[in-house]
């Protein structure tokens, strides 16, 4: 019997003492569904999958793994797009899927206390009878869980006005790797001490395991109305976005799609998009009845002045939802055009959009891979979708290289490699470009404060300096790497 096999058997036996038999999966046929998240290009079978359903069980699993020095990867619905929940072959995959209960909807304080495996949309559905909702709405909201949203600091199409997950979470219960339960925040608007709530949000499962979340609920706007504007030039569409913001209007949603994305979405859901337009803008205005009436007129004028070839206001809620359906289905729509697609997630200062789109088009020719662009125009978050076929030898590698170039372009214009999808395993190389060695070392130091052994989701989100040196992006001074003694995980 090899050491590895013995190790696995011992681990499984110990886990079965903590968890019910059906909550410990170790055969390949059972663990296969967990081999990847939404970034399916990366796959790995975990050593064991655990499906605890109480905080005490999670605590016991962590405690065991801590003592046995087994790495742990937490997972919600597995919809993440950066490989954050990619299992480790020598590690435990900790699924929080059984934590599905909404514990409390507190209408007076407008907060909901939920378990981490509750789906994003389920919170809004539970709050709907009280005229309330949970604002962040990632495209995957029917499936993605709130625990994963917190881990990734997920966004959505309404971020500019209503913020990201970090702006809408008030409290967390978190287990650290040694099984200690931390209560951070609660139902108050802020909490004493350092802002650990902000630090935990978007930490990609590297600092702790989220076992409970308290979110803020907002009143549903009295009215929402959407305008669809067509442009014969993406530059004009980009300028129109700046014009709307300059006029002092913060739309609830402000989205842009380029021609390939428009065509794909129209063919898929028949949203009524103009397939010959170079770009469309979807601008949703929400608020009080009077506010929306005032702003709709103003935005129409601004769009026309910006050179829109057509400006349509959705006549009713049915048409409004149809306009949105095209945008929300943009990813799967593009997916129909090609065997595979690769979704990027850079954010750029909005004014740099024309040059970024131009450069992406040039790279598309250079790499011979088509691209469709979907853009959260209001907040500068760009999702270029690269179309490829993984069955063609070398095409995945070419796609990844092309994607990497796009991310480096985003950094070069003053933006970031990820606006809402997270770094995960996917963009870990580009972290070496965005951050200096000392900054990466500080991230490792933060990780060290929470998880000194480096057992939680190792190898994700923050690259080791060693890895950066291999990636070729590290600034090597006088032939030696800075911090040669830095702990690497």
């Amino acid at each position, binding site marked *: 019997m090899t050491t590895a096999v013995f190790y696995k058997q011992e681990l499984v036996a110990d886990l079965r003492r903590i968890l019910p038999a059906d909550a410990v999966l170790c055969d390949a046929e059972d663990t296969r569904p967990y081999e990847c998240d939404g970034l399916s290009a990366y796959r790995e079978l975990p050593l064991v999958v655990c499906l605890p359903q109480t905080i005490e069980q999670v605590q016991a699993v962590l405690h065991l793994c801590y003592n046995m020095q087994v790495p742990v990867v937490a997972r919600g619905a597995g919809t993440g797009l950066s490989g954050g929940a990619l299992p480790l072959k020598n590690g435990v995959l900790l699924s929080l899927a059984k934590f599905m209960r909404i514990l409390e909807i507190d*209408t*007076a*304080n*407008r907060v909901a206390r939920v378990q981490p495996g509750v789906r994003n949309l389920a919170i809004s559905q539970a709050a709907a009878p009280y*005229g309330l909702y949970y604002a962040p709405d990632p495209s995957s909201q029917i499936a993605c869980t709130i625990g994963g949203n917190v881990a990734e600091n997920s*966004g959505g199409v309404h971020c500019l006005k209503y*913020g990201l997950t970090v*702006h809408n979470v008030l409290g967390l219960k978190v287990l*650290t790797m040694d099984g200690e339960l*931390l209560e951070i925040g609660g139902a*108050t*608007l*802020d909490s*004493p*001490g350092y*802002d*650990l709530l*902000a*630090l935990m*949000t*978007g930490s990609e499962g590297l*600092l702790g395991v989220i076992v409970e979340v308290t979110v803020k609920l907002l*009143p*549903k*706007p009295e009215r929402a109305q959407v305008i669809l504007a067509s442009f014969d030039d993406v530059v004009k569409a980009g300028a129109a976005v700046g014009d709307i*913001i*300059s006029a*002092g*209007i913060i739309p609830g949603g402000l989205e842009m799609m380029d021609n390939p994305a428009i065509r794909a979405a129209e063919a898929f859901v028949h949203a009524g998009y103009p397939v010959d337009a170079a770009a469309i803008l979807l601008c949703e205005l929400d608020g*009080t*009845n*009077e*506010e929306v009436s*005032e*702003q709709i007129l103003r935005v129409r004028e601004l769009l026309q002045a910006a050179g829109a070839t057509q400006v349509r206001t959705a006549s009713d809620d049915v048409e409004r939802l149809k306009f949105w359906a095209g945008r929300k289905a943009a990813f799967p729509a593009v997916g129909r055009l090609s065997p595979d697609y690769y979704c990027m997630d850079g*954010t750029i*200062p*909005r*004014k740099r959009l024309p040059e970024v789109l131009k450069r992406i088009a040039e790279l598309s020719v250079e790499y011979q891979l088509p691209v469709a662009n979907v853009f*959260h125009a209001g*907040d*500068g*978050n760009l999702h270029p979708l690269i179309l490829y076929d993984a069955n063609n030898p070398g095409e995945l590698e070419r796609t990844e290289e092309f994607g990497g170039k796009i991310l480096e372009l985003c950094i070069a214009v*003053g*933006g*970031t*490699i*990820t*606006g809402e999808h997270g*770094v995960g395993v996917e963009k870990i190389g580009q*972290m070496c470009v965005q951050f*200096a060695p000392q*900054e990466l070392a*500080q*991230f490792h130091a*933060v990780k*060290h*404060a*929470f998880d000194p052994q480096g057992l939680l989701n190792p190898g994700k989100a*923050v690259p080791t300096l060693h890895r950066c040196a291999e990636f070729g992006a590290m600034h090597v001074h006088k032939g030696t790497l800075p911090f040669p003694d830095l702990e690497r995980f």
Partner: protein
Amino acid sequence: MSTGVDMGAVLQAKVLDAVTQRTPLRIVGRNTKAFYGRAPSDAPGVASPTTCMAAQVSPEAGCWKRPALTDTFVADEDLSIARHYGVVSYEPTELVITARAGSSLADIEALLAAHGQMLPFEPPYFGVHGEDTLGGMIACGLSGPRRPYAGSVRDMVLGMKVLTGKGEILQFGGQVMKNVAGFDVSRLMVGALGTLGILLEMSLKVLPRATSDATRVFSCNVGDAISRMNAWAGQPFPLSAAMFYDGQLYVRLSGGSASVSEACRKLGGESHADSDGLWASVRNHKHVFFHDDTPLWRVCVPQAAPPVNIPGAWLLDWGGAQRWLKTSTTDDVVREQTMAAKGHAMLFRGGNRQGQVFHPLSPALVTLHRRLKAEFDPHGILNRGRMYADA
């Protein structure tokens, strides 16, 4: 647009020197919040009151006048960031401003106002002449009346340049609205009172100013006030502030004029003649409630929590989420009652500044705070004891 003076390298040299000498540093902007946080007995003395003028901004000329600083402004052991000031970039259409920590908050707000924009969280001013700095605002993490409806100072932070206790200048976050690369170290700095790093530069999200404001006044008791503020906040009214004091509930509405008038009609109440003056007085603690030497507590409870049973005088802001309490009762009573209401309390001004000023943390969190502090400031030289006795 870039103005002012970058003293980053000078400050860095001073920190490296302090590391070598193991000299504890007390980080000072314009010293307007010296009353805030702990005043540990072993820390350097409080700097003498300032007589200097706020920096003046002139957007037309695109330059900042150098602030006049007197030599007596800071004691030797203080690390002054006041000379590290100026706007690094401001792009109204991008809704982002980046400025150095020593910049005058009033000047930043004036610059934004000139472009029809604002810091939506209405940061308070405590300087006699309003000489508060941007860095002090972030380090203390304080927000004003609009906070529950538009977000806090921490919510608007997009990125930061920080000088750690190791003497390293590091940059986190950025100048874009959405950025999830790396841990959110920028927001970790907000409210950390300089114990994790010296804030050098910050990028903040800004928002358009509302075109119209109105305040409605209602006579009622505190219980009714809490119910009403929260019932209204659960409906789509354009609320931008709500507070209760001395039998009167004050509610501010902001937005387009038609929207504000319609909301006023629906809510009823009396019109308040000086809406701007009222909210500025609450924001900056110039309201008559604050004219007093009794220890002032900041009691935070869930917004709709019933009145907390502690003897003293109360002013409820933030729709009930932030309650100001003047009381001479013991710390234990304040904390016990607040915790029973699922809240936390800090001694904001006056009282025993050597004691537990901020709300005590659980043992697990204390350990984590110590570890984090050690990772940013391994030599323990930054604002030692300002937040908690041992951090």
